């Protein structure tokens, strides 16, 4: 029995649980093992990346809807700005890890907890940018719209909101990048997103997994930022024509 066991130990290639048949790089836990990374792209990193994008999209879309509605309301009724700013400001200041944990007793270890926290971080940025954008619409443009006989509602949707688009997208940029960053922390609550491999790696201090997941999160944030800049140029051609930037 013992003989056969030791025999199998000698003949079998080293098997590290979860890492499968390990090569030298993995066994010695070198800084980064390309082989392991590409072997586990399909079962670890790609799903984590897709989950991360999903978490981010939901949070930004929901946050966008709430913030735009609140910003337009505050634009029409000035008194609403102060209380909402204070509320969103407090949420924005609470450290993400703390907010996730504080929501757990209320909404449990669910995706809902994660989304509520992520949405709450988008509110301040989107609300403030939208409101500033609306307020910076030139009075001349409003006068012209009134002169053309537009009703208040038409003026809002055809003149003021379109002119505020650059400021709104600037806000979406910041909010998206912020959410991508904070969604890594969501892995404390649910086993999703690029934070999940980071926490898995904590159990074994496995360098490759740390670096790969961390680098993917950084790349995703930079890529999203660049895409939104491109989108902003696409939908606001007049900003380019002005030659002010």
């Amino acid at each position, binding site marked *: 029995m013992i003989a056969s066991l030791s025999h199998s130990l000698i003949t079998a290639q080293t098997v590290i649980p979860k890492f499968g048949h390990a090569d030298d790089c993995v066994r010695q836990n070198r800084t980064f093992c390309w082989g392991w990374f590409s072997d586990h792209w399909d079962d670890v990193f790609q799903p984590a990346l897709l989950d991360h994008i999903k978490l981010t999209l939901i949070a930004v879309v929901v946050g966008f809807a709430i913030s735009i509605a609140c910003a337009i309301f505050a634009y029409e009724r000035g008194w609403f700005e102060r209380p909402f700013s204070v509320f969103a400001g407090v949420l924005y200041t609470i450290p993400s890890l703390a907010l996730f944990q504080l929501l*757990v007793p209320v909404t449990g270890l669910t995706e809902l907890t994660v989304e509520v926290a992520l949405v709450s971080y988008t509110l301040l940025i989107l609300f403030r*940018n939208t409101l500033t954008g609306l307020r910076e619409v030139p009075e001349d443009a409003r006068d012209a719209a009134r002169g053309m006989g537009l009703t208040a509602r038409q003026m809002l949707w055809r003149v003021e909101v379109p002119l505020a688009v650059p400021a709104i997208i600037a806000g979406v940029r910041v909010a998206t990048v912020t959410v991508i960053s904070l969604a890594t922390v969501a892995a404390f609550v649910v086993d999703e997103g690029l934070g999940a491999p980071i926490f898995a790696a904590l159990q074994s201090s496995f360098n490759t997994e740390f670096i790969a*997941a961390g680098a993917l999160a950084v790349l995703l944030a930079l890529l999203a930022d660049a895409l939104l800049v491109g989108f902003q140029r696409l939908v606001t051609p007049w900003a380019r024509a002005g030659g002010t930037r």
Partner: protein
Amino acid sequence: MKDFVNAFKFMGDNLDLLVNKTVEHLELSGAAIAVALVIALPIGLWLGHLHRGSFVAINAANVGRALPSLAIIAIGLGILGIGFVNVMVALVVLAVPPILTNAYLGVDQVDRDTVSAAEGMGMRPWQVFTRVELPISLPLVFTGIRTSAVYVVATATLAAIAGGGGLGDIIVNQASYKLAGVIAAAIWVAVLALLVDAAFGLLQRAVTPRGLRRAAEVSDAPPPDEGAAAPLVAGRPVPGIE
């Protein structure tokens, strides 16, 4: 609801622990902000004085904001391993951009006429910098420091996974402290972040020259609260932002 009641019970029973961890948390945050200040303030202020390097100074904030803090710590864990060095590097990397960008913008955006007037009075460049540009830019410079400080206090919580200590130690260790302890520490750290924000807000008000304080109240400038360099930099059309 019971969880929150238990959390407050935990606070009462473990006040010493929470106070110790808070001190640790603030020491770590303070050290990181101090290092970031030493690196970022001189560069930002000097570039602003010269009106050079706007691309670097402004984009520092955009890139800095894009860096997920947990990812930075994770990459640090892979390269530097667990320990104080990794945590400090991550916190400093995250603290530098807002300070740098706001210091640059603060000095760069001082009214050129004011600077000309000072030069006309015969001030040397150094005097223009210390007596005119610096006092006028202080509110914006402090906005950057405030943003960084709040950011670092929040991120120091995550640093616990890399052996940084502080209140995060309790939050990530539910096995030892139970849910009550985790929630107690979460409440504690949330209040700490809000207090740091408020403290820097007061400090910011105190360093604002009296003349500017009135001007700020009269003009319709967006209030400097909530510190976020983000809305400031990305929200308002700053020349050369892209």
